């Protein structure tokens, strides 16, 4: 079994035509004077298609980076084009897109979230992963249903010998084991259980739950890999994840008691059939089914705020990829996804808050309260085709995707008495041409460009006749990017990419004082985000590897045609991540520095007294016209490998997160009369210690 002993950081930025993943062989010692042979994973047949904007890392490379806590998917935070998520949110901010507009896939199967609710861990065990791929936008026709970006996780091929990995840290405990059951069947099983709540209890931090919803999480995975015939395989994969958190702020006044409990979970079961035909063409079919659940139960005094969603998810991804000529590869595929959701919502329309809402941290919802129970059925059938056309140094990849949406809701007007509901059904189609271009100017310099049209169906929770609008249609976007990649030296590369994203038909609240019945949301929102990202990457050289990722961007929204353009809630002008690690024999030392501009906030310019609630209410200034202070953080990591026996390796790591204990502002908070302002600060100095035993 080949295992990268010295995890180097090799970002494959989607320029090369080779399909191999790069990794250091286990026996190689890092030495810049000797060219290191790379292990090559040969793919027989037609090479897979690559997006011009994608960044791909092997799991082994990713998990060694500082700040990942040995979790490959956490490396996304270190990549360009990715905004910093608020502490504890675990959201994906890709090229200035709303987190809800980006998608996460495992082997092509969509899962609802990359991270557990707190953002501490990813929802898929790192021991099951082969690679992590970030595509912040402008991707090809084989993926869709999102106007933001995407993160793809690829599960690894199970080895033919017994393998086990046991990991324990102050955050959680996990285990993963795989074995060959017969000559054709391999099985892998894994699971993880969060320990953070117990860790905090041990260190006697009883009041932390008043300020931070301590997450309890678990996930599990099973993969069976069956070799059917030569060049034909079938994977059966089960994934599951669950999160819970609870927070109670007590008070002698029942009206000021606050309770918040959240739970989220998903399960996925999918088959992945792959076959390489005799003519070299590839076939892949992935049918899947699953369930998503989420429940957010808040109460502010007697005011409830409940949002519960239970969804049956299903889909099918099928693709045939063949070579039409020596320089022409055709991909034909179908991407089907459906969701049948039951939703229950109670409370104020303003909770949960939407992007662009006038709100201040800690402000209770309005006194208004309503209820709705509804069902939705969203079905998207999307055939697509992509050509890879090599024209010497130029490769052109045109593609076309047609999304046909069936959108159904159980009720198109609010419930009145026992009146039977009248549902709403509509068919929408979206024609989505896409293109990618790569031009290898020289052996060291490549230029690339990509553009495309994208769409996504409305969120099920927006289709309520009481809290939303049942007739909402898909949201659409145009993505474009252009960039170049330069090999500055043998192991030093630089890539620069400019990007632009225009958004239309966004669902926004109706700002009118008298909105239409069953029309709380309008599809009049527009937006754009643009910027440039840079990645300077030093691959392993004399034991050192590192990178500098910088993104300069601006993301704006306009809610109605007559409204002023404003900053997007998650806009971050500058995002800089510098990280590096140095191997010294069995030791590896790493450091990471992150800097980001503070996100926009709406200033409070005054207050009035709400006599009924005996509280002050804020008077807001211009929406998102000020910012939180900038964020910066230094993280340090040290790990050491111990060869416990010939077959066992123990990795011990210590990560010092926010090593300088810098108080980063995560929110503005105000005195009750809004006369004084303070800040809620984020993660203090935290040390994460963990061990991983590999057998």
């Amino acid at each position, binding site marked *: 079994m080949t295992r990268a002993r010295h995890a180097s950081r090799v970002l494959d930025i989607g320029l090369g035509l080779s399909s191999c993943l790069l990794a250091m062989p286990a026996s190689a010692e890092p030495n810049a004077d000797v060219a290191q042979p790379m292990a090559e994973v040969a793919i027989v047949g037609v090479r897979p298609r690559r997006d011009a904007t994608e960044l791909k890392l092997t799991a082994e490379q990713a998990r060694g980076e500082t700040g990942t806590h040995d979790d490959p998917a956490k490396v996304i935070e270190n990549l360009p084009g990715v905004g910093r998520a608020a502490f504890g949110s675990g959201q994906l901010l890709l090229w200035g897109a709303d987190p809800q507009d980006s998608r996460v896939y495992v082997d092509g199967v969509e899962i609802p979230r990359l991270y557990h609710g707190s953002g501490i861990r990813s929802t898929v065990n790192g021991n099951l992963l082969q690679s992590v791929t970030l595509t912040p936008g402008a991707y090809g026709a084989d993926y869709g249903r999102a106007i933001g970006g995407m993160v793809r996780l690829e599960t690894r091929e199970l080895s033919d010998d017994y393998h086990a990995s046991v990991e324990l840290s102050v955050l959680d405990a996990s285990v993963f084991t795989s074995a060959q059951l017969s000559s054709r069947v391999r099985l892998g099983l894994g699971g993880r259980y969060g320990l953070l709540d117990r860790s905090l209890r041990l260190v006697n931090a009883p009041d932390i739950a008043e300020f931070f919803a301590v997450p309890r999480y678990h996930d599990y995975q099973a993969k069976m890999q069956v070799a059917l015939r030569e060049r034909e395989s079938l994977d059966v994969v089960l994934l599951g994840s669950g999160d819970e958190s609870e927070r109670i702020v007590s008070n002698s006044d029942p009206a000021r008691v606050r309770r918040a409990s959240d739970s989220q979970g998903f399960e996925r079961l999918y088959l992945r059939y792959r076959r390489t035909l005799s003519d070299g063409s590839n076939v892949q079919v992935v049918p899947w089914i699953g369930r998503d659940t989420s429940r957010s139960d808040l109460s502010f005094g007697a005011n409830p705020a409940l949002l519960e969603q239970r969804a049956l998810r299903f889909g099918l991804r099928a693709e045939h990829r063949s070579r039409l000529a020596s320089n022409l590869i055709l991909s034909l595929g179908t991407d089907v996804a459906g969701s049948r959701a039951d939703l229950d919502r109670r409370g104020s329309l303003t909770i949960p808050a939407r992007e662009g809402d006038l709100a201040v941290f800690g402000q209770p919802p309005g006194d208004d*309260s309503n209820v709705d129970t509804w069902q939705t059925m969203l079905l998207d059938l999307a055939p697509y085709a992509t050509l890879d056309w090599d024209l010497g140094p130029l490769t052109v990849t045109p593609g076309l995707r047609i999304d046909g949406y069936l959108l159904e809701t159980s009720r198109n007007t609010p*419930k009145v008495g026992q009146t039977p509901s009248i549902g709403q059904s509509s068919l929408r189609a979206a024609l989505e041409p896409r293109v990618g271009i790569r031009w290898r100017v020289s052996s060291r310099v490549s230029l690339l460009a990509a553009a495309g049209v994208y769409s996504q169906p409305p969120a099920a929770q927006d289709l309520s006749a009481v809290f939303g609008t049942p007739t909402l249609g898909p949201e659409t976007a145009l993505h474009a990017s252009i960039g170049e990649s330069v090999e500055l030296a043998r192991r030093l590369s630089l890539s620069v990419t400019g990007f632009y994203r225009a958004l239309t038909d966004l669902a926004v609240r*109706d700002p009118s004082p008298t909105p239409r019945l069953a029309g709380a949301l309008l599809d009049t929102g527009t937006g754009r985000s643009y910027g440039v990202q840079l990645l300077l990457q030093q691959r392993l050289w004399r034991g050192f590897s590192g990178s500098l990722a910088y993104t300069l961007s601006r993301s704006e929204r306009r809610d109605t045609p007559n409204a002023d353009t404003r900053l997007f809630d998650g806009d971050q002008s500058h995002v800089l991540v510098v990280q590096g690690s140095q191997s010294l024999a069995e030791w590896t030392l790493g450091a990471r520095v992150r800097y980001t501009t503070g996100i926009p906030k709406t200033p409070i310019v005054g207050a009035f007294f709400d006599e009924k609630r005996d509280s002050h209410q804020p008077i807001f200034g211009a929406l998102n016209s000020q910012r939180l202070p900038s964020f910066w953080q230094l993280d340090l990591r040290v790990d050491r490998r111990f060869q416990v026996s010939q077959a066992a390796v123990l990795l011990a790591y210590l990560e010092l997160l926010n090593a300088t204990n810098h108080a980063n502002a995560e929110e503005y908070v105000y005195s009750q009369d809004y006369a004084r302002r303070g800040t809620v600060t984020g993660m203090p100095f935290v040390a994460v210690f963990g061990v991983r035993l590999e057998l």
Partner: protein
Amino acid sequence: MKRRIAALLALTVLDSSACRPELEDDYWLVNAPRVLAVKSEPAEARPGARVTFTALLSMPETSNEVPTWNFCTAPKPLTENNAVSAACLGKAALLSVGRGSSVEAVLPATGCTLFGPNGAPGGYRPRDPDITGGYYQPLRVDVAGSEPAFHLQRISCDLADASTDTATQFGLSYVANRNPQLEPIRASVDGEELGLDAIPPGARVELSVSWAASDSERYTYFDRTRNVLTERREAMRVSWYTNGGRLETESSGRSEDDPELNAQNHWTAPESGGSFALWVILRDSRGGGDFAAAQLRVQP
């Protein structure tokens, strides 16, 4: 061994209080003129009915300032989370009522359309009720030198989103809210009752107020989740304000299912003598209320 583990885990959160905002918030302390409460009589009325409004002000007795009263006629957009529309802070949406510490006015006839369940003709969205099923007409009260205050006057509207039978039954069984009445404020130190005018310096005084059982009224409520009429009981809140000493909390109260008919607070008297104002406001969850003002005299 356990100690070692604990020490290791202690590294996990070296400073768990780092998240805590540091804002001293003495919301109970009043040292400027302002509106503390408004009492309306009757506590709930139909649009077009005549109502008397009385303000509780934290004004020096010598002050000549009188409040100005205006109804607001602007409904709150869905984009705003506040109690009233931002338009109520301007002048365009105001309807003059008068001046004085107490005024009498006729509630605007459009209340149930603008702020209630009767959506405007043409298919417009009705307003959502509060958690007691009530709708409210905003009334702005201004005092010079203070931020605006808004009283929300509960208005009686028909039940619009229920079946005809349920709405009829609701109309027959629902009783409009009545204001509760505060019993006299009582003070004690270490369980021994004492007069409000004989408080020892530095003493930690338990202040207690109570109300009658009939003040926590039971009322008919339309449960939209189950689409049936049910009965609920009012929750009660007591707000406490003073201009000296230190109150333990700015509010206390009883939830719907709490049978107690009293609320307590603690006031720590200053070490120096003097006379300090105490204002106590009792509110029920349907927008009714009562208030009382007293002087706390600290005798060295």
